[in-house]
Each structure stands twice: as structure tokens, then as C-alpha cells.
């Protein structure tokens, strides 16, 4: 899938909107698969697992479930809206509504890196290292990642920088 379709990019009417976390869909499927496999193991090998094994399986299922649910509700559908008409940036998460983050002139974009992967972040000028918002998927260092970076910069980052000017 194209990066701009995957992140649900919408450009038009002097606004840019996209959901940077949509990429975690595949990890959510992974969680469901993990839960299913662990449940099957728990069911089939119940006797042979022993007390410790059963507890481990339950802990794994509970952890995957809670993590998956958290990501589903609080991350998957987060949407950043750059409104060129009002010169304001909003953050929207469907069940919770839309919140104004900052004005265009306060916006600053930085790169952030965490144990090997890096991503673009949005922050308020002079406070960007206190609180910042992740606005891109994680990029690694391989060839496939380079393509994603290129696509992201071309489809999303450059239009945003143009709009913010």
C-alpha cells in the first residue's frame, strides 16, 4: 500500500491531515495472532505445561490484549490536522474529539531517535524537547526504510513545510 493511503493522507482546501500511527495495524494483527497461538497452546498442552507454564500463557495473553487495546484506542486513529485557513495545528482522536496543539508560527519539526529507529516529531518552539508529537512512522536504516523515508518526505513532510511557511 502507498504510504499516503496507509497514513490516510488528505490534502486539500489549504489543509493537510494524516494519521501517522496507521502503520501499527500490522502489529495489532500480530498481537491477535499471538493471543490465538498462546490460547491454543494453553488449551492443547494444559496438563504438560504445569503451573508455571499456565500462568505464563495467561500473562502473555493478558499483556498482548491490554497493549493491543491501548494501541487501538489511543494510537491507531490519532490524526494531525494542519489547518492553513486558521493557521493552527489540531490533534484529533475520534472518540475523544479534537484538540488545538499550536499555531503555525510556533511549530518546529525535529527528528527523534530511539534505539536504532528514528522518526519526525512536531513540537512547540522553545519547548520542543519537553513535549513533542510523533508525526511519522519509525524509520530504520535499511534500503526499504530509505524508500519509506523518501515517500514520507515527498508526500507529507514537504507539503507540511510549504504550508507552515
Amino acid at each position, binding site marked *: 500500500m502507498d504510504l499516503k493511503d496507509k497514513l490516510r493522507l488528505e490534502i486539500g482546501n489549504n489543509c493537510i491531515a494524516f494519521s501517522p500511527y496507521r502503520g501499527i495495524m500490522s502489529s495489532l494483527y500480530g498481537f491477535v495472532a499471538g493471543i490465538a497461538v498462546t490460547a491454543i497452546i494453553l488449551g492443547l498442552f494444559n496438563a504438560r505445561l504445569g503451573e508455571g507454564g499456565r500462568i505464563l500463557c495467561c500473562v502473555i495473553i493478558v499483556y498482548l490484549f491490554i497493549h493491543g487495546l491501548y494501541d487501538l484506542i489511543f494510537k491507531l486513529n490519532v490524526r494531525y490536522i494542519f489547518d492553513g485557513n486558521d493557521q493552527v495545528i489540531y490533534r484529533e482522536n475520534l472518540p475523544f474529539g479534537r484538540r488545538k496543539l499550536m499555531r503555525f508560527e510556533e511549530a518546529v519539526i525535529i527528528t527523534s531517535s530511539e534505539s536504532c529507529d528514528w522518526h519526525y516529531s512536531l513540537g512547540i518552539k*522553545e*519547548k*520542543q*524537547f*519537553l513535549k513533542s508529537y510523533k508525526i511519522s512512522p519509525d524509520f530504520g536504516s535499511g534500503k526499504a526504510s530509505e524508500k519509506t523515508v523518501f515517500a514520507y518526505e515527498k508526500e507529507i513532510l514537504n507539503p507540511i513545510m510549504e504550508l507552515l511557511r
Partner: protein
Amino acid sequence: MKNFTKEGNVYTLNKQYGLFVPLIGFFLLLTILGFVKIPESTFKWWMLGITTLLTLSFYVGFLTIDMDQQEFRTRVSLFSGVKVLPLSDLEGFTIHKLKQMGFITTNVTLLANYSKNGKNKELKLAQHFYTKPIQSILNEIHEIIER
């Protein structure tokens, strides 16, 4: 300016008491504890050594931004010399945060990025226990070098 003292066109970073006082205080406490409670072990000498090294480091370390010579001058630790970074070589800044268990920040360092012989290098400018003082220092550095 909160973090820098200006003399003509030379800006010096103020002594970072907020970083060193708790650190030196903590090791001083351990030193006293060592002398009083465990006099037979060598622990007290280690603590005394660390306290002394930290105190010396505190007095000897500095960061200066010289807008006449257009350069950064800094002495990072007791044993290193004075490092000079011309502003023209400066490529950007990095803030490095060390977090325990993923969310409790224990050390934040401000580094200047530059290239030497084609390699990317970093020069340590300041460090603290949490982000707010480092953000404040970086904001003032931007103000100084963009003037």
C-alpha cells in the same frame, strides 16, 4: 539571560549548581557515612575520591560562546583539554535523554554536532538531570548565535 553571562561579545554558561550540588552532596554524604559507619573498609576513600573529582570537575569545567571569534570553547572534564568548535563547523544540536524503565529521565545531555574528516562528531555542551534546564540553555544558545 538566565543561563549565560555576557561580557562584551563573549557569553559564558553560568555554573550549573542545580546539577552539581545534589551530585556532590550525595557523594559527600556517602563519604561521611563511610568514615563514620564503615571505617575499616576502603569505601570511604573511594567516596572521598569521587567527591574530590566531581568538585574539581565542577570548578574547572566551562562553556563559552565567543561571538568575536565565532566559536564555542568548552572544557568537558578534568582530564581533557579545552575544545574549540568554530561556529561555521556547527551542523546542529542533539539532545540525548537517558531514561530508566522507558519513562523516568535520569540524564539529559546537550551536544553540538559537527563533521571532522568526513565523520560526524559530537561535542558535549551541558548536562542535567531533567530536560527543562537543557531546553532553556538551548533556547539561549540559539538566541546568541542567531543575533
